[in-house]
């Protein structure tokens, strides 16, 4: 039977199952195949904080959404075209996001009376009319997998575990994904257990063959490769890109990287990644707590290392005092905050942009800190290098504000040419700088206002720094009122004077009346929404802030150029508060704090409303 092949320009798939069902792995592999095929893509993993919530329950549902297309895309997609539901809980938890007409591939084996009861289904939705608005493909994934693995010397339980690979095979057939990489991946993953490797590959191929032969799927789909800019690409998550950015920063600054960190969701993967790259001279230190993590990083910075600490919001709260110490001792330090839903423990695996004001102001005293925010998973690389550049050049702690959405989401990344990366190295001070041959640790560079960085081991420059206010120049303890006023203003001026590029505005015809501004991870959804507006003939300008402190010099001018300024944030208006205060511009805030990224459709509606309003 020759099956029909339908051309699509883009598809959104969501894999959903129990947290033990291997949905993240399935999604990762489908993503790898999709990347290899050459589609543009964007992913959104969504998993519970519990490592293994009770099986079959709603809190235990883990999902992975993938958006891929034959053109460049900006978000993991609003609503799935296809839901793979490995059990009733996965169906129930995700059905609300599914538009009418979407495909549901359900694992019928798991739709048992008991599993249905666990999530409150009185009857089996696969067997009544309740799913009639969708196209349901009822597939006994578990039993088909077990059958396919009959010839393997595996327990039934072990065989059942491969059902995610069966599902992956089926989906790979359905969307014409290449299979070689997945086979290779499974061989490597189970290199020490060749039987398991073979079984998983067999399950994967059985899934593919099932699609090919069964009548339950009469159509398969093709999404042509996207025409992206020429270059070498790889798929990368935000946390991995951020870790690579820190490594690049170490290489480009010629400073050994020292990471002091305490495990915390969703930042731990940066610690994991960096701990694998010791051959770059990277020291990773898993500290006893958040405070020790940043303390050790600052101590290493005093000794001439590129000191970094990685954490999430609750950890930033704990590190505040040490960041203040870094402000006053004027040592380079990078504080990575992978923001998550708060306050307090909040929702550790869910995303938010609610730490902006804490990053800017969450310390005692006048304690200015530069803040940099990446706008997409791969941009975490460049943002990390930029944060390091500022830290090293200006001898200051820098906050790098990623978030859970960027951290775990992924997209294709066009690899930079190493030779194009900026040289961010600075010389250590090795000679006295005083008129009488003495060393003045707080005599500043006249241009950057940075103080000299003289590290232990440098003869003749022995000096003492610390948290007590220091006299300008000599660095001796000083309680002099005028000196304190001078030092407070000088530290502020140093940060305010950091060289950041001007804001660029995307306003194709130059006649838009409405400007949408954002910062951080909202770039994708905002840009996708802006495209929608423009496709339907609307006019809207867009700009996005990477530097939250200092703000680009032209920020006020840009804001005042438009009749209306709309600012969507995943908080209750933190940047809006700042922009209103700084520039007296009546910024229109749009805020949702659901632990999830914005949807393009949602933002398009908001932008349209602003355009239409008087």
């Amino acid at each position, binding site marked *: 039977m020759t099956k029909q092949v339908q051309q699509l320009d883009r598809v959104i798939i969501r894999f959903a199952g129990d947290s033990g069902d291997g949905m993240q792995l399935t999604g990762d592999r489908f993503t790898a195949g999709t*990347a290899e095929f*050459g589609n543009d893509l964007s992913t959104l993993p969504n998993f519970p904080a519990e490592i293994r919530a009770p099986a079959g329950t709603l809190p235990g549902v883990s999902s992975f959404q993938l958006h891929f297309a034959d053109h460049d895309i900006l978000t993991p997609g609003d609503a799935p075209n296809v839901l793979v539901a490995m059990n009733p809980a996965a169906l129930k938890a995700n059905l609300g996001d599914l538009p009418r007409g979407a495909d549901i591939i359900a694992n019928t084996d798991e739709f048992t009376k008991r599993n249905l009861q666990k999530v409150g289904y009185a009857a089996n939705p696969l067997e009544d009319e309740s799913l009639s608005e969708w196209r349901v493909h009822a597939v006994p994934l578990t039993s088909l997998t077990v059958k396919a693995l009959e010839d393997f010397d595996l327990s039934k339980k072990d065989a059942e575990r491969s059902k995610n690979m069966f599902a992956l095979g089926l989906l790979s057939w359905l969307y014409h994904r290449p299979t070689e*990489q997945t086979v290779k991946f499974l061989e490597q993953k189970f290199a020490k257990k060749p039987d398991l490797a073979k079984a998983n590959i067999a399950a994967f191929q059985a899934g593919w063959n099932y699609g090919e032969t069964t009548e339950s799927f009469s159509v398969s789909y093709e999404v042509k490769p996207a*025409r992206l*800019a*020429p*270059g*070498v*690409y*790889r*798929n*990368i998550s935000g946390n991995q890109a951020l870790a*690579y950015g820190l*490594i690049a920063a170490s*290489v480009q600054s010629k400073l*050994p990287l*020292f990471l*002091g960190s305490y495990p915390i969701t969703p930042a731990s993967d940066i610690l994991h990644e960096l701990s694998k790259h*010791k*051959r*770059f*001279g*990277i*020291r990773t*230190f898993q*500290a*006893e*707590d958040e405070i*020790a993590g940043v*303390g*050790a*990083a*600052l*101590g*290493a*910075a*005093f*000794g*001439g290392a590129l*000191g970094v600490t990685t954490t999430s919001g609750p950890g930033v709260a704990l590190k505040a*005092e*040490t960041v203040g*110490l870094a402000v006053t*001792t004027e040592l380079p330090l990078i504080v990575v905050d992978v923001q998550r839903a708060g306050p307090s423990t909040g929702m550790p695996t869910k995303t938010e942009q609610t730490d902006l004001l804490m990053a800017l102001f969450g310390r005692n005293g006048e304690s200015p800190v530069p803040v940099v925010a990446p706008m997409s998973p791969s941009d975490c690389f460049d943002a990390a290098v930029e944060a390091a550049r500022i830290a090293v050049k200006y001898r200051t702690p820098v906050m790098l504000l990623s978030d859970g959405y960027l951290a775990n989401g992924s997209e294709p990344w066009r*690899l*930079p040419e*190493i030779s194009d990366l900026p040289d961010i190295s600075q010389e250590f001070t090795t000679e006295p700088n005083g008129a009488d041959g003495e060393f003045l640790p707080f005599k500043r560079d006249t241009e950057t206002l940075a103080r000299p960085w003289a590290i*232990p*081991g*440098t*003869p*003749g420059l*022995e*000096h*003492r*720094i*610390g*948290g007590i206010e220091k006299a300008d120049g000599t660095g*001796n*303890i000083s309680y002099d009122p005028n000196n304190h006023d001078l030092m407070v203003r000088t530290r502020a001026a140093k940060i305010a004077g950091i060289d950041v590029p001007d804001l660029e505005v995307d306003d194709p015809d130059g006649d838009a009346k409405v400007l949408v501004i954002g910062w951080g991870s909202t770039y994708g959804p905002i840009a996708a929404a802006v495209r929608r507006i423009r496709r339907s003939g609307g006019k809207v300008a867009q700009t996005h802030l990477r530097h939250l402190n200092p703000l680009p010099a032209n920020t006020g001018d840009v804001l005042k150029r438009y009749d209306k300024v709309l600012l969507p944030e995943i908080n209750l208006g933190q940047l809006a508060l700042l922009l209103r205060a700084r520039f007296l511009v009546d910024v229109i805030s749009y805020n949702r704090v659901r632990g999830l990224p914005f949807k393009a459709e949602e933002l398009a509606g908001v932008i349209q409303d602003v355009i239409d309003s008087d």
Partner: protein
Amino acid sequence: MTELVNGKGLSLIPKTDVKQGMKDFKSDQEVRWCPGCGDYAILAAVQSFLPDLGLKRENIVFVSGIGCSSRFPYYLNTYGFHSIHGRAPAIATGLAASRPDLSVWVITGDGDALSIGGNHLIHALRRNVNLNILLFNNRIYGLTKGQYSPTSEVGKITKSTPMGSLDKPFNPISLAIGAEASFVARTIDSDRKHLQSVLREATEHRGTSLVEIYQNCNIFNDNAFEQLKDPEVRDDITLRLEHGQPITSASKAVVRGANGGIEVVARDGVSEDEILVHDAHNPDPSVAFALSRLDEPAFEHVPIGIFRQVDRPAYDVLMAEQLEEAVAQKGPGDLGELLLGGDTWRIG
């Protein structure tokens, strides 16, 4: 007797041929402790002992937290970092772990080290970072003007405890031994010779050395250690701990007691071979721990000296070895190769 095999000591820290004197280690800053404070004696002891080490001065770093004692780095002409309350061991850990060529000192007090910074202290000890931690124990909060501290005796009447403090104090030596410390010693501000001999041993120990220094606060807790200074009684209550020597004071001796413990008896009631011989290098910490409990409840007999000094790889050395091993296995890191390391594809 157990013998030490760790030869590293100061070998990783650059030496100088230039003859140094005490004045080379004095900074130009005016020392501002209360007149009569025990800190003066400790500062003078450190300033006059450092030149003897023959280390390059620029490779010595003093890190402190908050408290009276934490002003210490300002008065030494070495590199110094006066940090924040309780965090000095953490900051020093990052410095020492990334710079094996430095002699890193932590100056702390009983509040700084055992209260707000207790967590960092115990973890530094278990990791065996190459630090010399000098814990000035005056059993009171001085800088905040006289509240009780985690080493104050129960019932201490202070500004914050007008009816007496309720909480049992820490014994810093017991705590350190319990935290897997590889070097634990106690000395006293008024005995410069002993203080310097302990500091020398601590410096040459590669790993974390914890030295508790009984230090008099003449303003808020004067004469806290008077028995150990009073010529009338001090020789009777001070039990000298010297590796390989019987543990005795002028009139007392430590012997094996009932129930597997140790006890203090009159010296003239036992024969020489019954007296416990101190083995500071014993890998088993149980006798060192038992010795640390001898001054409970209060100063009837106080062991002074090195309780424990055992070989254990230092954290900075282990960390450096992993870096070297990674390079040996896969060669030095190459950024271009790293970025190309995943599944890549080419467009155009």
